[in-house]
């Protein structure tokens, strides 16, 4: 009955999440390797994620209407709606990164991205861990993701500072510099979305709302 539907819904959400993780990985790679085709693949995949979000939302509403769930089942359905929304936004950020990647192709490389591979790795691990936390109903792992975002914020500030120093010394680099600045910002936002998801996972497991705390 509802238990089966919930299993199917979780499966669908993880499919969506897998697609979104792949988009993030490809988007970052397209920046680092200046791969136009890969950037375009990311942009083209976005419709599928949007479709997933609609289907998951419709399924949740239907299950709430038909089964009037309570307790952990109610928490699961409300949390799945919010997580799928955050995953959809995560895919949007990957598309935005891919677009910056295409813009950067119009300019010669500005400088080697020193911190970018590292911060990208941290962020991708946050996304992976928060999804693992969801699958395994692991509130502690979810809290860990939330805390790791501080490191992302610190690196973001550092990268921003370095970039502004370069741009102030070389004003001709401002046009590609703006794309890089936005790129950093998109990545930092992906970290925030992983944090949003971690807070939903915590609520699912513990029943306590920790957002804004």
């Amino acid at each position, binding site marked *: 009955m509802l238990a089966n539907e919930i299993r199917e819904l979780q499966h669908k959400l993880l499919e969506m999440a897998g697609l979104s993780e792949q988009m993030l990985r490809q988007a970052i790679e397209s920046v680092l390797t200046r791969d136009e085709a890969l950037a375009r693949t990311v942009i083209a995949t976005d419709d599928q994620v949007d479709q997933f979000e609609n289907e998951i939302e419709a399924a949740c509403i239907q299950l709430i209407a038909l089964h009037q769930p*309570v307790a952990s089942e109610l*928490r699961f359905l409300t949390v799945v709606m919010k997580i799928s929304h955050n995953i959809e936004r995560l895919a949007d950020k990957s598309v935005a990164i891919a677009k910056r990647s295409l813009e950067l192709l119009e300019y010669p490389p500005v400088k080697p991205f020193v911190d970018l591979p590292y911060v990208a790795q941290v962020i991708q691990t946050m996304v992976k861990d928060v999804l693992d936390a969801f699958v395994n109903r692991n509130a502690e792992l979810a809290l860990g993701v939330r805390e790791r975002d501080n490191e992302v914020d610190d690196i973001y500030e550092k990268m921003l500072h370095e970039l502004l120093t370069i741009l102030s010394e070389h004003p001709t680099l401002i046009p590609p510099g703006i794309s890089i600045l936005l790129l950093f910002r998109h990545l930092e936002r992906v970290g925030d979305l992983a944090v949003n998801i971690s807070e939903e996972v915590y609520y699912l497991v513990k029943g306590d709302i920790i957002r804004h705390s």
Partner: protein
Amino acid sequence: MKTEKGQPILNIRNLNIWYGDKGILSSLSFEVQEKQVTAFIGPANCGKSTLVRCFNRLNDFTPNFKFTGEILFKGSSLYAEQDATTVRKQIGMVFRRPTLFRGSIHENVAYAARISNVSRTSELNAIVEKNLRRTGLWNEVEGILDETPVQLSTGQQQLLCVARALAAEPEVLIFDEPCGELDPIETVKIETLMRELANDCTLIFATNKRRQAARVSDVAGFLYGGELIEFGATEKIFTNPQDSRTEQYVTGRMG
């Protein structure tokens, strides 16, 4: 829904109940707050009817009934009072099946006032009208007050029983499966009425309809095998129960 803590009107301390040698309820302790709706849920034979009937002293005549522990009503033992009728004026009861008294609709509602020695017709009429209005039944029965209530629908008969209980101006009103015999429309009427009555009165009800407890109560207790497994704010019981047995019951996987 009201969740702020009012004054405890009933205080149950370490209550144990037996029918003969058979233990029905064990070690129950909780407080019922004034002007809140408290629901007891649980599968069949978990002891919820036995519990709510205690508050109206209805188990007094049950053979082999015995209990230990305390049931305090406004600080005094409910069972210290010799006359159960005195208790029942303050703590009214509505049953699963409409329990009509003999006589007309008017006589049913006027019953409590009569045994309290109200005899003036105008006063009795006012009491009857007031309480039929409170239950929303007045417009439907105004023209047939002197007729037998047998002709009323089951839902109307149940509302009449609520009006009769209210006419005693009770401080607490107990409902034992109040919608057990009613269709969904009649159920909505009773549930809506229960919420309204909680403005003036403390309500306690036993139900095996989980959703009804979720819709109507401020506080809910889950009884299982004679034990009070969990007791707390209804929204907590239905969103984040602390005991796995409560979780199983409210999600419909048990009972």
